[in-house]
């Protein structure tokens, strides 16, 4: 048992010594252990568990063959943990049992995955691991890799990411949220999803906070290493992985030679496309190493952990591309498809993560720690597109046969964070802690190269091809960079006097953050002259700028996308925690957040909105009540106010070309505010067992939604983020249960979410007198990304005796709104998605184990539908929409990822 929490320490080693002979067993899931066939006579028992001080040695004597001795052992936490300064607690243990303790003792609503849980999960990134947390769904990238977390129906913009409680800047080109697939999951000590904010926490998380608590220095020498390899069944000789080498031009001609330089075709290198080569079964690999120890009389603790992943994934995608505008005939807002694309994605993701924590205990009242994190991700994405059908629409004849489009994208993302943290006990009742933080996040997309070739084949009467005509040969080279730098300071002062005989904790503090973001963006579009047919050889095609002045950097039409942002945020809080009644804990207070952001773009002087300053102040009260019904049952109720700041890319009047519409920024965006209410019942029957039942309600003011607006000319329409005048509501219900029966455990969670927002949409219809008309109508819909029903179920098998852990994990994400359309009733919905994963770990010999992870066993497809009956499309469209399976809907996209296998060895000292 844990000395403090009383939790069972499953896996702890119990050693029985008799006559100099040692026998050892592991503690079961429910905390029990037993030795059978023990000889009579004197014995000694002691218990060891990683992270805990060895137990005292219990001695005794067995006198008879049938005697049963029961020896309960308490273990003390070994680290010289000083005080729980963070409200979230600072337990440094990696087991399920210890996180149960944190969940139970935390003053607010949160869910935690322990390192042990994560290790056994079938997932290698934090993003994929997040989907196992109650109420969390993930949004996937094109290759099926989870990328962003949606917490209780609130999409990524409403959530924030912390590392060890410290906010990190995002490498995202537009938004503040951090792509969660960049973090290798094995670096974590635990993953917390905090769903209710206390005043001491930053207030910009309406949905929730993902706090990545990284491994901290142990109390004795620790060495663990793992290595694994695997493959995806997607790839084969007939469906190879397309590998490419990044372009040697890491900088654009304008970045090298200045903005007035007139680039020509000779300035570009097509290596990103010409270096394509096929690999039939690329071998994925991962490796990890953690070393930690304590020195100088346990005063200095050091841990270094490194992780490397090189994963090959991909997807096969079929996609119908809708025209920007639907047709009013035959039905209002009848979708029109211009192309039916077959796309294959090949994605190689290389991740390197290194982190290091050094803590130094100056004396029993003062402790310093230095934390460094470096994460690098390089993603090589090759996209091959073929449109072999040709839809015979306005721009295409029936004879159209070929559209090829190949794109190679290398995206490099880095996050670096360095935090110096100090804890000081200033007296019996006073404590002080502080953090000095420097963080940099960068994202580079050097020379994304895309080639497209569109040709017609002319047919004769009998349908034979008589000629091929080049419609369009285009080559684009694109560079995109952004960098965020944060310098922050945090300080907290905690005063814990006894008032009227009760412990009361006052805390106050604040933070200051100076943030600088720079972004640049340039596209060079070359045309192939239309006279040369493409025969798999770029060198034959006379690419050029037309007109030649389009090669000049300052003629780049995206100057507004080159910007500089400075943001100075400061916030202060005051909170108090006390027991109003013996069993009722109250935590309440208020936080003030000040935001001061200014931006400047490179747009010329004639451009309105080229620069601006935005300042705002928010006062965020919160109160959290925790009532202990019994020792192991708790009821929580909380209210908190929170905000969500618009992304930089939304505020700056940037313009980027979207898939269907161009998108522009809006400096007049207001930030989002929300009132949040939570109620939760918790039951911890013991061991890792758990039952949580909760409900929540959120009222969201000034929600940011994307609207289609006119951009100058009446027919030029763009998507622009705007504050919806109507408020959004989001409420739901959450349940989580974990129960172990000896070596088999079951864990289930389910979340029901209901959100509604009403926005203005376009309706294109045929009016009897006015003819075709475009009108505005209101449509009520869920928030983007929200699924009504989300659930996880897993079966766990944990046998310390066999040295075998296994987990079968199932994730269900109900139908959710994938993309909002500017047109009424043409939103894109992702169909309910099920994924089944399996993982196991088997100890081979002491300290060495074999493990395996199998992802997406059933080859689940991600499918996107329009809620328009496909039978009502016009006759020409019917010929091209492909296989359909739901009468009332139109399937517009399906992505298959196939199964991913990974297997390897783990060594722990």
């Amino acid at each position, binding site marked *: 048992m844990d000395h403090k929490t009383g939790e069972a320490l499953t896996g702890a080693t119990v050693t029985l010594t008799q006559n100099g002979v040692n026998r050892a067993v592991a503690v079961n899931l429910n905390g029990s252990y037993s030795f059978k066939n023990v000889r009579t006579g004197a014995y000694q028992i002691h218990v060891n568990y990683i992270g805990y001080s060895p137990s005292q040695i219990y001695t005794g004597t067995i006198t008879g063959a049938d005697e049963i001795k029961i020896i309960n052992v308490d273990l003390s936490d070994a680290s010289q943990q000083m005080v729980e300064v963070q409200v979230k607690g600072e337990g440094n243990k990696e087991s399920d049992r210890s996180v149960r303790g944190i969940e139970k003792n935390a003053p607010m609503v949160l869910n935690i995955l322990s390192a042990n849980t994560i290790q056994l999960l079938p997932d290698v990134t934090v993003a994929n691991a997040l989907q196992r947390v109650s109420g969390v769904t993930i949004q996937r990238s094109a290759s099926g890799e989870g990328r962003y977390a949606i917490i209780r129906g609130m999409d990524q913009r409403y959530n924030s990411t912390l590392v060890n409680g410290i906010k990190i800047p995002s490498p995202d080109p537009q938004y503040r949220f951090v792509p969660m697939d960049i973090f290798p999951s094995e670096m974590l000590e635990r993953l917390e999803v905090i769903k209710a904010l206390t005043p001491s926490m930053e207030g910009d998380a309406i949905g929730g906070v993902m706090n990545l608590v990284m491994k901290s220095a142990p109390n004795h020498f620790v060495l663990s290493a793992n290595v694994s390899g695997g493959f995806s069944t997607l790839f084969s000789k007939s469906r190879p992985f397309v590998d490419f080498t990044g372009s040697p031009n890491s900088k654009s001609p304008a970045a090298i030679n200045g903005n007035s330089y007139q680039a020509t075709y000779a300035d570009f290198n097509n290596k990103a496309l010409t270096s394509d080569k096929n690999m039939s079964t690329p071998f994925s690999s991962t490796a990890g190493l953690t070393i930690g120890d304590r020195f100088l009389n346990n005063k200095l603790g050091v841990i270094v952990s490194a992780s490397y992943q090189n994963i090959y994934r991909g997807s096969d995608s079929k996609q119908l591309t809708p025209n920007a505008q639907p047709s009013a005939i035959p039905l209002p807002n009848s979708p029109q498809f211009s192309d039916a694309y077959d796309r294959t994605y090949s994605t190689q993701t290389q991740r390197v993560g290194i982190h290091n924590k050094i803590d130094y205990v100056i004396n029993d009242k003062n402790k310093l720690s230095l934390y460094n994190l470096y994460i690098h991700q390089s993603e090589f994405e090759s996209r091959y597109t073929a449109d072999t059908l040709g839809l015979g629409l306005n721009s295409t004849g029936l004879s159209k046969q070929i559209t090829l489009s190949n794109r190679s994208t290398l995206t490099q993302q880095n996050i670096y964070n360095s935090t110096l943290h100090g804890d000081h006990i200033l007296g019996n009742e006073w404590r002080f802690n502080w953090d000095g933080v420097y963080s940099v996040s960068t994202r580079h997309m050097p020379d994304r190269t895309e080639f497209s070739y569109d040709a017609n084949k002319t047919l004769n009467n009998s349908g034979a091809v008589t000629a091929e005509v080049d419609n369009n040969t285009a080559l684009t080279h694109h560079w995109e960079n952004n960098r965020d730098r944060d310098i922050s300071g945090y300080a907290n002062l905690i005063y814990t006097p006894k008032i009227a005989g009760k412990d009361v904790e006052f805390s106050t503090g604040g933070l200051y953050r100076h943030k600088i973001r720079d972004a640049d963006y340039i596209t060079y579009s070359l045309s192939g002259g239309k006279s040369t047919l493409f025969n798999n050889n770029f060198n034959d095609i006379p690419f050029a700028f037309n007109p030649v002045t389009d090669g000049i950097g300052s003629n780049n039409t995206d100057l507004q996308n080159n910007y500089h942002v400075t943001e100075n945020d400061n916030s202060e809080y005051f909170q108090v925690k006390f027991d109003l009644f013996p069993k009722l804990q109250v935590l309440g207070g208020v936080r*003030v957040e000040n935001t001061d952001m200014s931006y400047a773009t490179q747009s010329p002087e004639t451009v309105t909105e080229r620069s601006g300053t935005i300042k705002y102040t928010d006062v965020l009260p919160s109160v959290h009540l925790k009532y202990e019904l019994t020792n192991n049952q708790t009821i929580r109720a909380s209210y908190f106010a929170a905000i969500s700041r618009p992304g930089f890319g939304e505020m700056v009047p940037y313009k980027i070309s979207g898939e269907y519409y161009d998108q522009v920024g809006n400096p007049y965006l207001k930030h989002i505010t929300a009132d949040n209410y939570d109620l939760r019942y918790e039951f911890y029957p013991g061991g890792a067992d758990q039952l949580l039942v909760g409900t929540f309600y959120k009222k969201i003011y000034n929600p940011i939604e994307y609207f289609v607006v006119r951009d100058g000319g*009446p027919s030029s329409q763009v998507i622009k983020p705007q504050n919806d005048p109507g408020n959004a509501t989001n409420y739901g219900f959450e349940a989580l249960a974990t129960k172990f029966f000896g070596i088999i455990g079951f864990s289930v969670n389910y979340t029901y979410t209901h959100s509604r927002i009403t926005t203005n949409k376009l309706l294109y219809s045929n009016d009897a007198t006015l003819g075709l008309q475009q009108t505005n109508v209101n449509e009520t819909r869920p928030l983007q990304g929200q699924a009504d029903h989300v659930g996880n179920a897993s079966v766990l098998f944990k046998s310390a005796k066999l040295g075998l852990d296994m987990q079968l994990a199932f994730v269900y994400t109900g139908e959710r709104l994938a993309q909002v359309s500017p047109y009424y009733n043409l939103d894109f919905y992702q169909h309910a998605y099920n994924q089944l994963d399996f993982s196991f770990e088997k100890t081979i010999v002491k300290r060495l184990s074999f493990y395996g992870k199998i992802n997406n066993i059933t080859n689940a497809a991600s499918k996107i539908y329009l809620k328009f009956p496909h039978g009502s499309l016009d006759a020409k469209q019917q010929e091209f929409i492909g296989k359909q399976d739901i009468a009332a809907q139109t399937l517009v996209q399906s992505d298959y990822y196939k199964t991913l296998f990974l297997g390897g060895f783990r060594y722990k000292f």
Partner: protein
Amino acid sequence: MKKYIIPVISFLLAASISGCQKWKGEHTDIYTYTPPAASPVSDKAPLSCSTSGSTVISVKGTMLSGKTYTVEAGCDLVINATDTLLMQPGVTLNMGLGSSLIALGTLVSNGSKDAPNWITVAGVTKNDAPGGLTAAADPAYAGKWKGIIGGPTCNLLVLRWTHVEFGGLTEGKATSTIAGSGTGNQYSILFANYKGNFIMEDSWLYGGVDDPIRISAGKIAIFRNTFEKNGVSGGDCLNAKGGTVGTMAYNMFMGTATNGQKASNKGQATGAPQTNIVMYNNTFVSGGYRQVQSGRGGCINFEEGAAGAYFNNVAINCRFGYRVVGSPIADVAHLTYGNNYQWADSLSVANQFYPTGYITQPQVTDIPSITTSAKYLPSTYTLGSIYDGSDVVQKNNPMFLNFPLPTTGHPLYQYSAIGSFNFRLLANSPLVGKGNTSIQPLITVPIDKIYGLSEATAPGTDLGAYQLNGSGNKH
């Protein structure tokens, strides 16, 4: 020690809390550009922006007969929303390289038959001989300056007896923001206000890069103009999008990259009317050859929800015939057509009189007759299907004053400018007297000698832009 630390820290934290500017506040300050106030235009010195720090020159007032005005390279000549610029007959406006003319208010170029106006680039030599220059070497397609934009607040843009030449350079950021248009536009003329009026009569448009005239929306009257060398490798010469209503008549098109006249309801704005365009008595020669994309059209095109009519038109050796698009479908319930003539030098042209893959309904009034032979058209003909046009190659010679048919000596795409050709009809032309005069023009603009349409010529009895009685196109 600690008895100092605690008060000091407490004080600092208290100070920072009380120091926050104001509770629950919000303040934004976003840069706004206002064009400078205009001064009356003068011809004394070039119109220059180089000292102003921006590209804008605000102008208003009157450009006087017989005078030449020069715009400095790279400048945007802007007529502010409440201002008017009137160009009297006989004005030459020389646009600098990379410059533009943006009407946010009113622009009237009031040239006359005897004293036309010129909005052009000085010192460019034209070569209009068939095959005289390749498209890549021809200054007509070079986009010397950006073009004329009637922005979202432009209520009236009139071009009368005015030559507009050598426009079409990519707009770029500064110009497009002032004009409220797209940065990548390469239009010689853009009009984008569905409440505004765009009138072009008896004028000439020479050269261009993409769509030479893009009507994003507007009330239009485009009468009796001549269009040559329009669009380098694509672009519809008169390209009307959602929210455009009016008439296109008696226009002469020679060597357009794609279509001469196109109507679509794409991008109809909320509040704007459905695109409805009546087209009659237009002549199209050698259209569609610089558009290498197949099936893009070569004379008239109705698509994507557009309503209207087309009658009495003449298409000579156009790569594709009159085209009605089936998906996204034109508003065929409100689209009428007939009395349209076509000529083909070759079988490949005749095979596309009714373009393959589209839904143009052959009309009994069409010339050549759709009952010419068993092959043209077969009884089994369905809309858009492949047929054999061999029986209508070089049939019904239109008997132009000076354009011998079939052509000789040059491939069809090289006929891109009128030069010494003359498309007036000889008295014995089979085009004479075949016109449908019962159709009505759709007049949505004010009728006015200066600030409107001076003459709405009714449909003519002869097919094409030139009438034997001298009415119609006066060039």
